């Protein structure tokens, strides 16, 4: 710190500013889990599979837009 000194330990209940964003991240992470087997059978299943994953993404995208409006990406 350029010669400065700290008074307390650095370990603290750190204010993690992106916490609400991480909740949304977990939702998308679970979607990613579903995408793994979906990718393997995609070509065999055809357009139906595309529609279904599209619906899944749209539902999550609604959550994304809601979070954006609520300001979870703003480093609160």
């Amino acid at each position, binding site marked *: 710190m350029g010669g400065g000194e700290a008074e307390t330990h650095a370990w603290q*209940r750190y204010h993690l500013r992106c916490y609400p964003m991480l909740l949304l991240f977990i939702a998308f992470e679970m979607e990613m889990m579903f995408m793994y087997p979906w990718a393997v059978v995609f070509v065999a299943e055809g357009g139906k599979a595309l529609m279904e994953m599209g619906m899944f993404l749209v539902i999550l995208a609604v959550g994304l837009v809601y979070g954006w409006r609520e300001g979870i990406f703003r480093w609160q």
Partner: protein
Amino acid sequence: MSARRALAAAAPVAVFVAVGEGTSDRVDDLCLRAEIERVASPRHASVLLVAGGVRERDVASLRRLHDQLPHPRATLCWASDIPAHFGTPRTLPPHAAPVLALRELYRQLLTGEHPSESDLLPDEPPAPWRGIGEYGQGGKGMMGGTPYGRPMPMTDDDLRDGLALDVYTLRLGPFMPTLPAGLVLTLTLQGDVIQHARMESPPLWPAPPSSPHAAHAAAVRQVEPLDESSILHKQGSSAAASESSKLGDSGATGSSAGQSGQDDNRYTPGIARTLAHREHQRAAQHLRGVARMLAVLELAPLAERCRRMACAIQHGDSVPIAPLRKALVRSGAFAAIPAGLGQLDPPMAQALGGAALRAAGDAVDERLHDRAYRELDFRVLTQRDGDVRARLHQWLDEAEQSMHLASRAGDLAPAAASHADERDVGHDPLPADDAVNMPAPNHDAFATLLCGLEWNEAMLVINSFDVAALRRMYRPPKDSPEEAGATHHGHAM
């Protein structure tokens, strides 16, 4: 010497620089050399370079810093007296070439000829563990009490969202590479957002006083006069640079002027300074400010390029600035800075003056009153917004304007250097004129600017002001007298 050490000796010397009074520019030019690697943390350094006079109140921090260097370590004091209780480091007079001395010191460290310096401070925690109970427990509580060892942080409300989590107070020292040299801040953080900020010590001037009048005043203040660069006229620049490069160290130097020749300065009082020279100094100072901002934006090679240009300009070369601006635009430097960050409201801008005021839209410039500038059709440049991005634009615009003026000026001499002008160019003005003709800020401008900002944004804001503006924001604590003269002795450079 083993092969490993021989290989290490061939590497660039990892130096951490503790910058003192009036030496920031020269240190920047020194670190452009390929043989020196300026590191951001003392843990990555082998040599501690103490350049210039260190303030009395900063000596304790310097000792702490010294102990943070890993072994093998050594200290070199350049143009500085050895600070109190600092052991016996090697010293170097101001006019000597530090590059050779640093390399020699490093080589001797590795071969063992120079012993690694021992700790200056005792290696003990401030409140050592003294067990009382059966299991060694003791003290009066970890949270909010006076425990043995170090306490943990306590909670407090947050500015942005009201959660009450831990606050962390840290003191960023005078030798922090991200901040201007000499600036000491106390920040209270929650996470990485600043809740309170206070400037404990103002930053030091980056360049030595250049007018004989200011030098005499500095001498009166018990600081010996500092040298001025010997390169004055544009015409004589390349000749003088190549001459002094022969006098300087014999290491491999590039053919471009401005690489060497820095080391051979003489103090030459009373030389008339032309308008071209002064505009070159101004452009160089602005470019150094731009370089500091680029470093915060993680554009380190562009920052080095900027400093290289500043060094060349300071020695009288006429370097075009347009390619640098194009490089900045392409790298997204302007786009990366949020709009409206660090915005100055009009009374604060009035109080700061200089480039910050012009970036906020006020066409106020000392040079308008000068006949020589009027002959050259000088026009004041301003920006609209007064935020960080505007100040960056202002620096680049003014640097370009200065180069343009200098190229047309020839041998024109302006009127006597005004103090405000001296300050804007980074030189130390007379102490009494620090507050000349400007209303003092009536509130804590610094705290207002930084409060609620996240770390990266705060670093951008701090580095968007030049040293003169930061010093204007400093409010000394009410009980202690202004320590204008309490500088540790610095040698003539």
